[in-house]
């Protein structure tokens, strides 16, 4: 994946700067769908004009939950019990019990969660996946490196719009931690990006 500043630091209507990222792994998520196919998408980020425009080629149902809007609850000062964490995440996601998704867009949201909250998110999402559910998100090659938080949108399967956000910088979970705590999907492919950032493709684990 190459960082393609096109145009460099362009201003968007929301007032933030945007960059276009060329993705190698997002095509793995969407190339299996034809225009007009029914597709169910869960986006853990805020609603994105680019993503909606891209998904409009499908018979899509997309849910934007914007977990980071509740960032203060994702890393609570006192470690909640497993049950408390599950309840908290379930309330924040607020998904219909029987909702299933073909695609889950994690972006870098999972790294804003404490390990036990990440485990709770996995537990909740597991019931909303099917055998063919895939996921997409970001990770880090260096676990101690601080990454800037962004909002993301999809221009097309090969291009991601990255927009500055007001959320706090974060350090990413290690792949080992992801494998231990986020078990509803497993990392099937990873591509190293610039500045130690990883692009991750997830599949359902059996």
């Amino acid at each position, binding site marked *: 994946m190459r960082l393609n500043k096109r145009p460099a630091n362009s201003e*968007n*209507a*929301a*007032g933030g700067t945007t960059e276009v990222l060329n993705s190698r792994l997002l095509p793995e998520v969407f190339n*299996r*769908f*034809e225009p007009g*196919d*029914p*597709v*169910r998408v869960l986006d853990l980020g*805020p*609603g*994105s*004009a*680019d993503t*909606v*425009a891209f*998904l*409009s080629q*499908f*018979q*899509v*149902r*997309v*849910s*934007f*939950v*914007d977990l980071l*809007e509740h960032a203060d609850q994702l890393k609570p000062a006192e470690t909640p019990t497993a049950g408390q964490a599950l309840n908290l995440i379930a309330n924040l996601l607020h*998904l*219909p019990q*029987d*909702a*299933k*998704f*073909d695609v889950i867009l994690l972006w870098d949201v999972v790294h804003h969660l404490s390990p036990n909250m990440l485990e709770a998110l996995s537990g909740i999402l597991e019931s909303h996946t*099917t*055998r*063919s*559910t*895939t996921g997409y998100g970001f990770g880090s090659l260096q676990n101690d490196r601080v990454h800037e938080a962004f909002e993301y949108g999809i221009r097309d399967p090969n291009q991601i719009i990255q927009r500055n956000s007001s959320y706090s910088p974060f350090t990413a979970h290690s792949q080992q931690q992801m494998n231990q705590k986020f078990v509803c999907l497993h990392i*099937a492919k990873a591509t190293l990006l610039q500045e130690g950032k990883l692009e991750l493709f997830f*599949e*359902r684990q*059996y």
Partner: protein
Amino acid sequence: MFEKRKDPPAPPEPAASPPQSTSTPDTFTSRSTAVIGQTIKIKGTIEGDENLIIEGSVEGAVNLPNNDLTVGPSGKVKADLDAKTVKIDGEVTGDISGTEKVIVSKTGLVKGNIVAPRVTLEDGAKFKGSIDMDPSPSSSSSAAAPASGPKTAKPSGTGSDTGNEAKQEAS
């Protein structure tokens, strides 16, 4: 309660003008449009057969299935909205159904689910909820109803999904 905003009268036609075209004019210009002003607050159900612009506060429900509904920049709505086309320039908390299209403009803020065959979020719009652009009748009941897999999806798992098969048969 409602202000009436009549469109300007059409200029008089020349006596020898040919018959009018049969094309349907834009509904926004062909019908009168009711306006709920900035200082107006309404609680209840609004129904009617004309276009509506909400610049004030509305709580309850708005049902204009054959007309266009605009929530203006100063509009604050806590209601489920049902109209032919819906344009959101202000704030809406509630579910939105558009039989033709829904547009959330760059100044719009929506917390709720949108069901419409065409949905546009303009750059800068704030949206939290589900968007359902699936035209199948069953989809309107829940914007995040159980998923049905793509007809042409290449399974990346080890087996087929029962829910997907059921949907494909139904379609």
